[in-house]
């Protein structure tokens, strides 16, 4: 049975979405979406992920063919009238932000960036400070910047080092001093120096020439192919690709204090704490709903916003991040496509995502002072060491938490046929959590062992001269190590002291299930079986005839030597003819 339709319907109704909205999320027309809901078509895996993100459940919850699904409480479930494309929490900011800034010194990690790049800065806000100081007034701060393929660190002395993809020289010849901020594009790195000038690695030609002329810069950001900066008078500059999106059309922005970039977009934060944008951006039309913002971070699908009260808001294309409303005293935020993370005043990192492994890894981190993320990985910095979790394709960080290894198959398999047993031995596999050994001779012939000890099966049911298989799987822990591919070893069972040659064979071509007991007994006699055990089960027979339910010892399709039949022990299970009902005696 296909449970997908009922599951899709249940989820959609719970969240009060229309079929049109679901069709839009999946990138199909409504007719096609209806086909998924009425069972004429099945979602592919990528679509399952989109659905899972939208409904805040694991992708397996959708892909698994059951109608069980988690329905989260939705206090702010959207309606199509409210918003066709994006989920916008209907929570608003208030004066707490200003009050909090006045009354609380707060360590704020400032995250800029994008999927592709974020910049994290640690800043200390003083008492009686209504405005947020320019970052250029801050010195000797360790900083961290993350793009999709690189991680760049700024040390206290202004030296810059990086790890990850250096195919375009974006990590080469980085400055050894004076850097106060960096921004990474698709294949270049831009560095802001403490004198308000910029330099770059991996950037050439007119773009390099342009940024080299900019002066008194206090903040920078980079998209895939553009650089944006703001000077100490709040003027914004941009250079790079501007086709199709207009990400470099920044002339209209005034009194800006911070700049951010997405792949093809530019976002600016003004001195009043309001956001504006140009180019491509996920929640562009909703930015006007927010004010008094301290910091943001953006990915392709999500925007996360930090307010002065230490709590956060978000705009998301597909997914709900409902856990973030439980978080308090937040000083830094960041997001990827499938997660939102925040840094608390206590140095702990909080994450809302569906991946238990990321959650588990993040829970270990302590005394963190900055976080940042790429699309699908999260980085944290404790002043001395970089921690990371998630996709690590370019070895941007040192971590093995996400690298799964499929274990090797066992080797040196030996199958010994003993007196009444089949004994299996094999060589150990490094990192194995155990082994499953299976003999294909009826139910129950599966054994799990913790080490490569010898495994024995009783040979009672085996037929002399028949071919069998031993299948051995090296077992992983389902986290770091995955089960090996099963190793299948064929062997022919030759009973010790017996012979498989010069035998007369009989093909069992009769289905026993449902056969009358008397008819079954006659058949056994006709082929020479004499060792017979009858087990009457409690299952009532349908009529007056006692019939066979199942048979052990011989089976349909089996070829068996006549001599083996003579020695075979056949057990058959029958239904029970109902007796007189209780109380009728």
């Amino acid at each position, binding site marked *: 049975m*296909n449970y997908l339709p009922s599951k899709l319907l249940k989820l959609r109704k719970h969240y009060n979405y229309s079929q049109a909205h679901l069709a839009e999320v999946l990138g199909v027309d409504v007719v096609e979406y209806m086909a998924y809901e009425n069972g004429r078509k099945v979602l592919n895996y990528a679509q399952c992920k989109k659905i899972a993100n939208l409904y805040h459940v694991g992708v397996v919850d959708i*892909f698994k063919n059951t109608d069980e699904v988690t329905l989260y409480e939705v206090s702010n479930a959207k309606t199509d009238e409210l918003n066709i494309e994006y989920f916008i929490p209907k929570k608003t900011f208030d004066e707490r932000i200003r009050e909090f800034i006045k009354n609380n010194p707060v360590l704020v990690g400032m995250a800029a960036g994008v999927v592709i790049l974020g910049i994290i800065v640690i800043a200390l806000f003083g008492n009686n400070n209504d405005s947020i100081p320019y970052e250029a007034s801050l010195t000797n701060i360790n900083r961290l910047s993350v793009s999709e393929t690189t991680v760049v660190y700024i040390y206290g002395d202004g030296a810059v080092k990086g790890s990850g993809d250096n195919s375009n020289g974006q990590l080469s010849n980085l400055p050894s001093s004076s850097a106060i901020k960096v921004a990474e594009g698709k294949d270049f790195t831009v560095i802001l120096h403490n004198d308000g000038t910029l330099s770059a690695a991996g950037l050439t030609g007119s773009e390099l020439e342009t940024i080299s002329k900019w002066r008194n810069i206090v903040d920078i950001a980079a998209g895939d192919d553009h650089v944006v900066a703001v000077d100490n008078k709040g003027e914004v500059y941009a250079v790079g690709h501007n086709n199709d999106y207009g990400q470099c059309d920044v002339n209209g922005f005034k009194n800006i204090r911070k700049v951010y970039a997405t792949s093809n977009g530019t976002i600016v934060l003004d001195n009043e704490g309001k956001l504006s944008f140009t180019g491509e951006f996920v929640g562009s039309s909703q930015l006007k709903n927010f004010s008094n913002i301290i910091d943001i971070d953006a990915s392709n699908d999500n925007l996360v916003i930090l307010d002065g009260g230490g709590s956060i808001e978000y705009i998301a294309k597909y997914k709900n991040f409902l856990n973030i409303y439980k978080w308090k005293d937040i000083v830094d935020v960041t997001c990827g496509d499938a997660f939102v993370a925040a840094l608390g005043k206590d140095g702990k990192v909080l994450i809302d995502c569906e991946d238990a492994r990321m959650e588990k890894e993040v829970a270990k981190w302590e005394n963190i002072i900055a976080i940042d993320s790429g699309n699908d990985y999260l980085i944290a910095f404790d002043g001395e060491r970089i921690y990371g979790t998630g996709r690590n394709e370019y070895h941007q960080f040192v971590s093995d938490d996400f690298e799964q290894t499929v274990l090797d198959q066992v080797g040196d398999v030996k199958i010994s046929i003993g007196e009444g047993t089949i004994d299996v031995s094999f060589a150990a596999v490094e990192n194995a959590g155990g082994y499953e050994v299976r003999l294909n001779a009826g139910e129950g012939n599966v054994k799990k062992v913790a080490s490569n000890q010898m495994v024995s099966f009783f040979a009672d049911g085996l037929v002399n001269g028949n071919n069998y298989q031993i299948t051995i799987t090296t077992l992983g822990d389902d986290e770091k190590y995955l089960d090996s591919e099963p190793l299948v070893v064929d062997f022919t069972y030759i009973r010790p002291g017996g012979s498989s040659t010069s035998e007369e064979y009989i093909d069992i071509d009769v289905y026993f299930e449902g056969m009358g007991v008397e008819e079954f007994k006659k058949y056994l006699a006709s082929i020479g079986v004499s060792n017979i055990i009858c087990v009457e089960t409690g299952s009532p027979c349908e009529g007056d005839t006692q019939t066979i339910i199942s048979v052990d010892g011989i089976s349909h399709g089996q070829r068996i030597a006549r001599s083996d039949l003579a020695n075979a022990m056949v057990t058959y299970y029958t239904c029970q003819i109902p007796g007189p009902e209780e109380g009728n005696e």
Partner: protein
Amino acid sequence: MNKIWRIRGKEGRFTDEELIRMIEKGELSKDDYISTNEMKTWMKIKDTIYQFYLKRGN
């Protein structure tokens, strides 16, 4: 599209389309295991929504 599917007992990674084709052609049965890097365990095809593509009796 990236090849994402692993099939227990087969080497390589397979796209959605390749996996579905193998199921439809009967090259994979309901008891074959499949997984992706995002799944923590193997799943039998019959336990997934891709059982939709299984031939009757396969």
